[in-house]
């Protein structure tokens, strides 16, 4: 029992945590494979991170230091809400610093600061099935995964190139994990896809409403689908961050007035803040 008395450490009971840990172990053993699990009803709404929360709750311990981001930022409302949930139910230390965190729960971004061995990145996943747009039926998509029957996935990319002259998928861009399973990286921008490849951290994906967990173990090959003559490429900006001057990070566009005025700032608030601190210190 912790801060919020009457509830278990990190909310979930031990039996549930064991069940989820078993699912996580299986997911790690078969990279990219979606493991069904007995997702519980959480006190937060489905679609708001219940999968990520259950995964985090199952792997977190009293000595952990948790960082929660949404859209790359630590202080977006949903990130605040989830961080408080764990501060209240697990009493763990929290941090904004990417390199200080042992567990980072995220929605829609991978931090710009490279992750290290021993860290765990927990993704909140709304729809885990990469084949869903092709085939709405779970019974059929599971068969397609079993047979590695992924050719139709390229049909979508073909259509993009035929229509637009390029692959027009910009986020939730499908990847092959360890050369075997097609996986949805959750709605991160494709800008972040290369960070998944051979990442030293453990990457866990939780989809609460759809009751699936999957994983990319450390140092695992993650390839974004593409054509040889239309290779995968990430977004780039003509601008640099208006606050820290970074030209390497994912930039959010901020509308500053109603006359077309806009500026670009880093989506990763921790990364941006640290760069500004260093710049100030240097001056």
């Amino acid at each position, binding site marked *: 029992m912790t801060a919020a008395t009457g509830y278990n450490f990190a909310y979930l009971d031990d039996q549930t945590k064991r069940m989820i840990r078993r699912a996580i172990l299986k997911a790690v053993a078969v990279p990219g494979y979606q493991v069904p699990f007995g997702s519980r009803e959480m006190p937060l709404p489905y679609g*708001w991170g219940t999968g990520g929360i259950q995964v985090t709750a199952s792997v977190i311990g009293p000595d952990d230091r948790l960082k929660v981001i949404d859209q790359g930022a630590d202080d977006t*409302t949903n*990130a605040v809400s989830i961080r*408080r949930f764990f501060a209240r139910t697990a009493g763990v230390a929290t941090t904004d610093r990417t390199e200080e965190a042992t567990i980072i729960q995220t929605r829609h971004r991978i931090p710009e600061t490279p992750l290290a061995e021993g860290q765990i990145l927990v993704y909140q996943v709304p729809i885990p099935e990469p084949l869903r747009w092709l085939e709405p039926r779970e019974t059929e998509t599971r068969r397609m995964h079993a047979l590695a029957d992924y050719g139709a996935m390229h049909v979508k990319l073909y259509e993009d190139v035929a229509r637009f002259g390029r692959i027009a998928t910009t986020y939730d861009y499908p990847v092959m994990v360890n050369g075997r399973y097609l996986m949805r990286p959750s*709605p991160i921008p494709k800008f972040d896809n290369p960070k998944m490849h051979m990442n030293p951290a453990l990457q866990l994906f939780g989809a609460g409403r759809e009751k699936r967990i999957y994983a990319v173990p450390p140092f695992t090959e993650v390839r974004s689908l593409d054509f040889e003559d239309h290779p995968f490429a990430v977004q780039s900006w003509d601008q640099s961050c208006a606050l820290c001057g970074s030209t390497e990070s994912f930039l*959010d566009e901020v509308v500053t007035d109603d006359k077309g005025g806009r500026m670009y700032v880093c989506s990763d608030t921790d990364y941006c803040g640290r760069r500004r601190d260093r710049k100030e210190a240097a001056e």
Partner: protein
Amino acid sequence: MYVAVKGGERAIDAAHRLMAEERRGDPATPELSLGQIAGQLGLAVDRVMTEGSVYDTELAALAVKQAQGDLVEAIFLLRAYRTTLPRFGASEPVDTAAMAIRRRISAAYKDLPGGQVLGPTYDYTHRLLDFALAADGDVPWAEASDTAVADVMPRVADVLDREGLIEANPTGGGPPGDLTREPLTLPAGRDLRLQNLARADEGFVLALGYSSQRGYGNTHPFAGEIRMGEVTVELVPEELGFPVAIGTVTVTECQMINQFKGSKDIPPQFTRGYGLTFGKSERKAMAMALVDRSLRARELGEDAANPAQDEEFVLMHSDNVEASGFVQHLKLPHYVDFQSELEMIRRLRAAGQQLEPAPAGDWPVEGPRAGASVSQAGGCPRPAPEGQRQ
């Protein structure tokens, strides 16, 4: 100088305090008590208990109060509470044949042992706003009937069963599953389908049942029997080894009797559709029975081409806590994805403006063609991605 928005935490706290104030309303008006809600908004409480899967009028009344009468939100509150409860065991199946009947009607037989008992119902009321209620009018007590309700009220389905005219109640092998503990796997057994339907959103089940009546997979139903009243819940404690009554609950049960022309292996007979809810939730119980029967199409060798017969479609979309969360999560920030799309659309438009006669190449040059739609996220060929955008 631009400063990134901060202070999410303070904003959330303030918003919640404002919400609490709104919920209370005008402090000059007396506050609602849970007893008032349970006693005077009983049908709302019954629905919350049914779809929340917890039989506790006080907790359900609290949920209704806390949710300001938003029943889907109240169901969510009760469900979230339910997950944290320890499981002491599973009850024996309740015996609805032994129900202390308060209402019992059959649309199949004019008269039958025990007779028709109309009980408390809005049926046959004229739906005229009753301004006497607005004026805090006292309601006259209903007079007790001289004749007591019969002790023995056989279920209509059992009457038919004795004649062999209705299929045997399909019994699944082994103990029923629990989809709040294990992920649903498809095809699901009838146990999981019924559990799912009992928890399903009343409006969704009602619409599906309705669709089956309007030609999208007709099951030719008769309301064989609807009964409402109290049943005893029994538990077999491990250390005792025999059932012990632990209380009574009010339930509404509907058994639909459906035409079935038979197949090569089965002679013509009636088939069953079953609905059961906590409290007085008759509309839900009837709709549930229709959909239960519709979902048995494949098992009975019927063509299963309609929404109400499509197990995966029905079971995956029936839960209003799941649906409400996912629909409403669209209000969470999507800055990053939106930024990505914005950038792509600008690029495509820029490329479109530069589009000149095709340069030489191995194949025709690409580029936005006249009439090509850029509206779909990711340019997917199937109209799915809008709903999948996160």
